[in-house]
């Protein structure tokens, strides 16, 4: 019964819930709520992932320190320079002569000043160039590891995780890391050394003024901390509002026909407008606070500058400090204010990046499929296609067995049909046969060889498979049909398309076999996509064919034509067919009736009708 609870999916749901909180991965640009659980360990792992690149980091760190030293030094030097200029100018004025800068007259000092700055500039430039490729190289390595991982993860991982979650780890999370490594890390180093160095140098001029600066700096960092906590909350609120609106829009676009048919356009507009208004409210506040912290801190630092200016100005008037010192001190306040504004933001970014790195490493650390045997058993040549399940036991969660004791034999060339409600275990049977999942007990053999003793590649090479959801990739129709057979000729592709009854349709497309398929443009119907996957399977000419509810979105007549073509091609080859309509499987050599994971009846159509069991009832209800 379709209304029955879906057992298999339930199991998968359990699996999903057990796996963690990320059900829908839609990370926004400023989703940095997370903190790393093991910051040091993750940092150490990133460090080792950067092997071969570490010199860049070391060089960049050295250059950053040089840069800070240079810019602080230049300011210190400028104090003396201004005093020197002022002294010379006053001397000239006193002598009644005009003052003109020349190499001998303060010019060399100005050039020295420029020289110090140039050294700082050189250090900065080396640092920037060296770091330009650091983060992306590191990410490329990690992305390679992820790509590698994707080919070794068990199917249970894919069934239990949303694609968006995994994609976001390989893209957003790594981008977060690279952004921080690219700029944040050095910014932090520069900020700390700049603020520290500036305070020390300020202290050499005047302790009281330095105290004023430090007091303001402490207040500023306190304020930043408070506001940052607030921004994270606001970002989450914005994300929630966006999620709500996205949900509504998706729902409305998918249900367009219903909205229009029932004349609910105005109601729907009002709903969307309300959700959009909500998002506008939250994002206005979030954007204001996020972009408002920096100027608020800057205001604080300007007040600091005013205070310092007044106090130092007074000292200048009293003659306690020189013009040069006054200006240098002021310069330090400015130099230290900017990094201070960014310091706490940078720390936050760093935390977010480490949390992102943890998610990436968690993916890389996922358990992998059992490796193939070192010495795989040979399959007899040619493969005849005898498939046997011997007392197979299996469950998606180990503590909840689904299949308890399943045995069946498909002789070479036989057509095996699998019948049962959704969730009865039909797909599970295929999952085990293809070793997408491993059995918990018993064994499955192909021509007498335990499938676990074969390499997966060798085993799967014997199968052609057409699945319920017609997966095609972004590429031409030809590329898609030829997917399973390297170097297939155009003639072979067209022959397969003809056999799958899709040749005519393809020819009516503007670019024929060179038409690009894309996943979101929906340029061909679901039924046609399915026919293309059938052509793809046909081209590989496998020993065993699996049709997993493949023809369900094709009408009966087309389905029959396809099945006939299949039958011709599959002569003397084993095939497993799962279909909704009993009409397509009445001529099967073996019909398996499944319920709650187990086979409750098996036999031919006539035998099962005569037996008067579940199959007979199902059959009668269909043609009553």
């Amino acid at each position, binding site marked *: 019964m379709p209304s029955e609870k879906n057992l298999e999916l339930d199991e998968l749901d359990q699996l999903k819930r057990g796996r963690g909180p990320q059900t829908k991965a839609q990370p926004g640009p400023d989703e940095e709520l997370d903190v790393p659980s093991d910051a040091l360990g993750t940092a150490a792992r990133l460090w080792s992932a950067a092997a071969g690149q570490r010199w860049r980091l070391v060089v960049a760190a050295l250059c950053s320190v040089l840069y800070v030293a240079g810019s602080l030094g230049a300011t210190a030097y400028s104090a003396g320079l201004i005093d020197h200029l*002022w002294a010379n*100018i006053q001397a000239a004025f006193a002598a009644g002569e005009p*003052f003109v*800068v020349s190499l001998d007259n303060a010019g060399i000092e*100005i050039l020295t000043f420029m020289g110090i700055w140039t050294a700082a500039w050189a250090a*900065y*430039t080396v640092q*920037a160039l060296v*770091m*330009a490729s650091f983060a*992306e190289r590191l990410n490329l390595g990690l*992305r*390679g590891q992820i*790509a590698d991982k994707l*080919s070794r993860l068990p199917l249970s991982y*894919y069934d239990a995780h949303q694609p968006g979650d*995994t994609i976001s780890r*390989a*893209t957003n999370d790594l981008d977060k890391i*690279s952004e921080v490594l690219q700029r944040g890390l050095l910014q932090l180093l520069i900020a700390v050394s700049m603020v520290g160095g500036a305070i020390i140098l300020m202290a050499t001029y005047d302790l009281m003024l330095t105290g004023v600066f430090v007091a303001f700096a402490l207040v500023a960092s306190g304020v930043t901390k408070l506001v940052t906590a607030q921004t994270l909350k606001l970002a989450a609120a914005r994300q929630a509002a966006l999620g709500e609106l996205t*949900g509504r829009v998706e*729902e*409305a676009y*998918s*249900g367009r*026909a219903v909205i*229009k048919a*029932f004349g609910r356009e105005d109601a729907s*507009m009002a709903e*969307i407008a309300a959700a*959009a208004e909500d*998002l506008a409210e939250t994002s*206005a506040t979030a954007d204001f606070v996020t972009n408002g912290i920096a*100027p608020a801190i800057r*205001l604080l630092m*300007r007040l600091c*500058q*005013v205070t310092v*200016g007044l106090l130092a*100005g007074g000292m200048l*008037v009293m003659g306690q400090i020189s*013009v040069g010192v*006054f*200006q240098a001190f*002021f310069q330090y306040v400015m130099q230290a204010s900017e990094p201070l504004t960014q310091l706490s933001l940078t720390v936050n970014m760093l935390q977010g990046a480490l949390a992102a790195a943890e998610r990436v490493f968690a993916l890389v650390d996922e358990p992998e499929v059992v490796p193939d045997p070192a010495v795989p058993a040979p399959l007899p040549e040619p493969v005849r296609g005898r498939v046997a399940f011997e007392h197979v036991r299996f469950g998606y969660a180990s503590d909840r067995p689904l299949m308890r004791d399943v045995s069946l034999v498909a002789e070479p060339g036989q057509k095996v049909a699998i019948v049962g409600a*959704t969730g009865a275990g039909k797909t599970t049977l295929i999952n085990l046969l*293809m070793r997408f999942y491993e059995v918990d007990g018993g064994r499955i053999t192909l021509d007498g060889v335990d499938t676990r003793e074969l390499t997966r590649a060798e085993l*799967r*090479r014997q199968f052609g*498979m057409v699945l319920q959801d017609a997966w095609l990739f*972004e590429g031409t129709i030809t590329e898609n049909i030829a*997917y399973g057979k390297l170097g297939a000729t155009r003639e072979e592709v067209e022959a397969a398309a003809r056999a799958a009854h899709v040749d005519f349709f393809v020819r009516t497309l503007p670019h024929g076999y060179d038409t690009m398929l894309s*996943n*979101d443009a929906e340029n061909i119907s679901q*039924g046609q996509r399915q026919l293309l996957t059938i052509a793809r399977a046909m081209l590989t000419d496998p020993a065993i064919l699996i049709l997993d509810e493949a023809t369900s979105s094709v009408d009966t007549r*087309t389905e029959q034509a396809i099945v006939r073509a299949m039958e011709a091609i599959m002569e003397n080859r084993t095939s497993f067919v799962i279909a909704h309509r*009993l*009409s397509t499987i009445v001529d099967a050599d073996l019909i398996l009736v499944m319920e709650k994971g187990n086979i409750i009846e098996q036999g031919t159509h006539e035998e099962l009708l005569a037996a008067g069991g579940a199959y007979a009832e199902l059959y009668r*209800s269909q*043609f009553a």
Partner: protein
Amino acid sequence: MSQSNRTTRDYSKRTSARLLVSLLSPYKKLLLAILFTSICDMTGMLYIPTQLSAMVNVAVNTRDMSALMGHGVAMLIAALVGSGGYITSVFLASRLCAKVGRDLRTRVYDHSLAFSGSDFNSFGTGSMITRTLSDANVVQQTLLMSILMIFPVPIACVISIWLAFSTDVVMGWVLLAVTLAIIAISVAAVAKSAPIFTRLQGFIDNMNTRLRESITGVRVIRAFGKEPHERARLDETFTEYASNAIRVNLVFAVTDSMTFFLMNVVEATIMWVGADRVGAHAMQIGSISALVEYAMLIMMFMMMAQFAILQVPRALACLTRAAEVLDVEPEIEDAAAPAALPAACEAGDEVARFDHVSLRFSDADEDTLHDISFALRRGQTTAIIGNTGSGKSTIAKMLLRFNDVTGGSLSFNGVDVRRITQEELRGRISYVPQKAWLFSGTIADNLRHGDADATDERLWHALDVAQGGFVRELAHGLGTRVAQGGTNFSGGQRQRLAIARALVRRADLYVFDDSFSALDYKTDAALRHALAGELTDAATLIIAQRVSTIHDADQIVVLRDGEVVGLGTHDDLMETCPTYRAIADSQTRGGDANA
């Protein structure tokens, strides 16, 4: 998409600019306010070094403590006005951009509601969602960034050059030259990096597409043993992305470095020339540092602007994509002076009539439906059967005016459907779509889409007819929450709820578009039996795949490749229509259980 390819670049730039202007035009006052606060911000910011240098000048010349205090107070005011101005700018700009984003989203959505099926499908659901949501997001964020980071730059340049000139004419020229040099470097940097940056965006999209493919297609990939192939494809996109990202970083690094170097030269030059000018009594010693500060601020602003400008092409592309949706003239529009629909008629009267109807989609070479003629009568059940692509569902869509005839005519209660408003027409029809779609809310909310004023009794009755008895067993009955799309119900349950929703509405015509296919045969039979007694004074149209579903219909229309190849009862058609017989045979082959 091909649509964006077709529009030329010039055209698209103008389109996006036009859309931007129309989005901003309701907020002129807000924009003016931002202009004002930005001027406050810039003036305040540049006045701080000005006052500081004045303090130095007072200190070294007159040593007047009260004048010093005066400059201190001026500086305080400058700080408050400047920062206050900026914070207000941020506040106002955040509001403005949030409103613009909201307006763009609702405009696209509202406009899309007038689309016909083919209007909508020319974009596709995925693309429409992107255009409504993420495109608007990009526009909103980029606009905010532009207002905060690009908008103030010309203001800052003008004010600082003016301040420099008012300090000393020679220094004014120096600063003007410096500003021009910085602008030149920035323009070069943007020109160099913009194309790489745009390409980078493409590589990011590629990365996402390939990753998604290799995850959603994992079963197929493994079945074909293509893991190494997919791995290579992924590696290729990753490498492309990395090398491009590194190039962008290098361009940024070089620009940064050049700006930095220029900064050094400028500082030394200002000191050199400035000291000369002090020596010539043209200005005072304290002004040197103020001038240096002006130059530094210009440079800082210009660097920020560079960063923001690089985001602009992407936002313009997003605006263009939204404009493409907004520029679509809906295919189907109501007549200027719509005719009134006559009230319900008597049993046996025609509710709808297809009179030599043809339909050809604008991008097709052949008719989807060709020369279709039949009538739907009150109290009768009409069924349509045919293979996939034969045009069955299109007939239902034409009745609802989701598509209009391109030949012949379709009338409802005797009036051509093109002469009545869509609202009035659809109000007379109750429709169960092929894909049973429910909306988030409660079951009752969903059922009342059929009739907002329906009583609970009506809802329960409709549920009973639709074989929706399972609702009674739910803890919250009619108040049970429905998840988005109705995904918390099974396909069969959704289908029955969708049928109940249609039954709640009192209509002249009930259309069931392949609505029974998700039901098992027993439920299908029970439902048809219950329906037979329910819809006696309306016309019923059933589109079906199973012969068993439509066996008892008063008339059956057999469609093949968009043409009617048979019209009659089951028994007639079994004798006269080979297509019908082939369909029937294919569904009962090998069984001797069928009658």
